[in-house]
């Protein structure tokens, strides 16, 4: 009987300890969402989330990937007042979503937690600001570079081009010697997300799409296709120029850091090099960047801020760029080796995005396809683009 009573007393004591321990550690669950850029990225982010949870035991992160049309899925969730607490925001949509009031301004959190924003590259951070209000921190970025099949370049005994004229010259040599069998020397997307870099290289800008500089850049870009020196991916049996490079249907493409893991996993045998983006009157490039932002409708803002600031802080970002899948958006985080030609483009890079992006981008790309296929003139396209972006 005494033994039974002693056992019961021990069990009661243990239960009391467990109960008090549970009462002391109340966890908050927050949601984190983004699109998938590949299995490697999804796995890496989950590992980083696990690391965060290990160092912040009171916060549990429910990470999910939104497949399919991310913009539409998020728009529907905003309208339902049920967005994730922390989520990706592409630079192209940052000002639209900030203006529509779906993003939480972060200035008060920055001030109260003394968060140091000075380490972010200013051009990238400014993409997520409206006036002086910060709506997100860039988690990474990439400009465009020029990637060239080194074997094909060697066959024409040429160096990597540095200017528009040299690009054209190298492509002409490749055509003359039929170096790119069944393809074209250059793969160019019918996409302003590539052509706009050429506009900046000619001294043009998004602010006036009907200037001579813009017209000249578009004529050069489209002219490469019309002169048989370049082709769009669909005519190279490819869904994008990265596939065209991998399949050796193109020798020269213009893509960002995202090309490297793709080539490594999908076309490991294709020999290529990463070279600086070409120039014309000046250097010109685009900065593709994505932020972590907080939802205005988040019900767990303090915990969401803790996660957001950690992910974009030095420690979180160091983990994120450690596998070379992305470039750091902070000056106190180093990229892995072999990324110099991307990083050096920072001084010429303009943030990707503009007014009325969703509507304007569709019009601009459809018009560009029409120009390339012959259904519209460059002047007509630029007039449509100017109206779509600026409403004039």
């Amino acid at each position, binding site marked *: 009987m005494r033994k039974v009573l002693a056992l019961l007393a021990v069990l009661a004591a243990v239960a009391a300890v467990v109960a008090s321990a549970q009462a002391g550690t109340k966890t908050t669950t927050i949601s984190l969402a983004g699109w998938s850029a590949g299995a490697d990225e999804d796995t890496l982010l989950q590992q980083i989330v696990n690391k965060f949870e290990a160092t912040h035991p009171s916060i549990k992160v429910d990470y999910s990937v939104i497949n399919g*049309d991310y*913009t*539409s899925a998020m*728009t*529907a969730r*905003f*309208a339902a007042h049920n967005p994730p607490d922390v989520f990706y925001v592409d630079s192209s*949509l940052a000002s*639209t*979503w900030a203006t*529509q*009031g*779906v993003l939480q301004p972060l200035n008060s959190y920055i001030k109260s937690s003394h968060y140091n924003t000075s380490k972010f590259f200013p051009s990238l951070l400014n993409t997520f600001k409206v006036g002086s209000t910060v709506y997100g921190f860039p988690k990474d970025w990439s400009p465009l570079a020029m990637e060239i099949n080194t074997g094909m370049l060697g066959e024409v005994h040429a160096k990597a081009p540095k200017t528009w004229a040299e690009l054209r010259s190298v492509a002409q040599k490749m055509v003359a010697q039929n170096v790119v069998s069944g393809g074209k020397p250059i793969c160019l997307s*019918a996409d302003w997300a590539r052509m706009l870099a050429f506009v900046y290289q000619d001294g043009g800008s998004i602010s006036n799409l009907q200037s001579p500089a813009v017209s000249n850049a578009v004529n050069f870009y489209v002219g490469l296709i019309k002169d048989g020196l370049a082709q*769009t991916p*669909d*005519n*190279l*049996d490819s869904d994008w120029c990265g596939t065209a490079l991998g399949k050796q249907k193109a020798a020269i493409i213009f893509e960002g850091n995202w090309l490297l893991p793709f080539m490594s996993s999908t076309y490991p045998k294709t020999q290529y090099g990463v070279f600086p983006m070409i120039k014309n009157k000046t250097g010109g490039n685009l900065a593709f960047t994505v932020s972590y932002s907080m939802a205005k409708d988040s019900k767990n803002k303090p915990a969401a801020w803790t996660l957001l600031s950690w992910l974009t802080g030095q420690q979180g970002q160091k983990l994120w760029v450690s596998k070379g899948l992305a470039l750091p958006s902070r000056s106190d985080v180093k990229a892995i080796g072999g990324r110099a030609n991307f990083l050096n483009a920072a001084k010429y890079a303009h943030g990707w995005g503009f007014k*009325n*992006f*969703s*509507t304007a981008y*569709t*019009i601009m*790309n*459809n*018009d560009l*396809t*029409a120009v390339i*296929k012959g*259904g*519209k003139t460059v002047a007509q396209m630029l007039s449509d683009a100017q109206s779509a972006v600026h409403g004039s």
Partner: protein
Amino acid sequence: MAATATTGGVTRSARGTLFGARIREAGWGYAFVAVPMAVFGVFFVYPLGYAIYISLYNWGIFGPPAGSKAGFGNYHQVLSDPIFHTAIKNILEYTVGVVPLEMALGLSLALIVNAKIRARTFFRAAFYFPSIASSVAITTIAIYMLSSDGLFNRVVGGHRPWFSTPSTAIWSIVGLNAWTTAGTVMIFYLAALQSIPTDVYEAAAVDGTSGFRTFWKITFPLLRPAHFFVIVLFGTGALKLFDQAFIVSGGSGGPAYATYTPVLYVYRTGLGGNGQFGLAAAAGTIFFVAIFILTLGTRFTVGRGQSL
């Protein structure tokens, strides 16, 4: 003893009982349809009414701006948008192309499987299979097959990317959808063929009518109810084209607006990042009215004397 009067041999109390029986019978009927009608109301009538309501406002992600008034500005904006005009042109081209092709293919298949052929049951299932396969999966496979280096070009020659060429993009979707829906059309025509009395064919045989003439002068006209049904059902479905246009163009409606459809216009306007729900609702309402008018027109032309 209750007072009763008699009229026409039926007492008032008996008439009352009869009326009560009818009420009870009707009541059971209404009770059985109450649930589906409630579902219809919640998922069709209410959203339709709400869409018309928000179409009168500059309705964004979180509703209209404070103090905004109802008006027809959204309707004016949609009706004067050249992209909407292009979308209407595209969908009319698509519908005029796909519906006759579906009818021709479906009727041909129905005639084949209605005949006394070996393995008829197998062929009926085989011809119907594309209709039940996932349209997303079929479209994705078609993108590869119709790419510049795809199987189709290897057979017919050439190097054209069919879905990426403005002049062939929508017609490629016509071909794809005519193939996938022919099986369903076949089912409707098969049922209609089997309802034609055999004595008309016997009479035609006695007269020595040829096979084609029998089909053209007897079978085809007698299938009029089926023609009307297929035109309305599949024509309405064609006008609402979305998934193939979205998949082949990546949601952009390209190349060069060639696959931009009215439903894609509504989708992009509402969910394309700007969240212009009011504008999207106006476009949807305009399209709803247009389809309704077209359906009525079909009813009073091809469907003269028919009922669905």
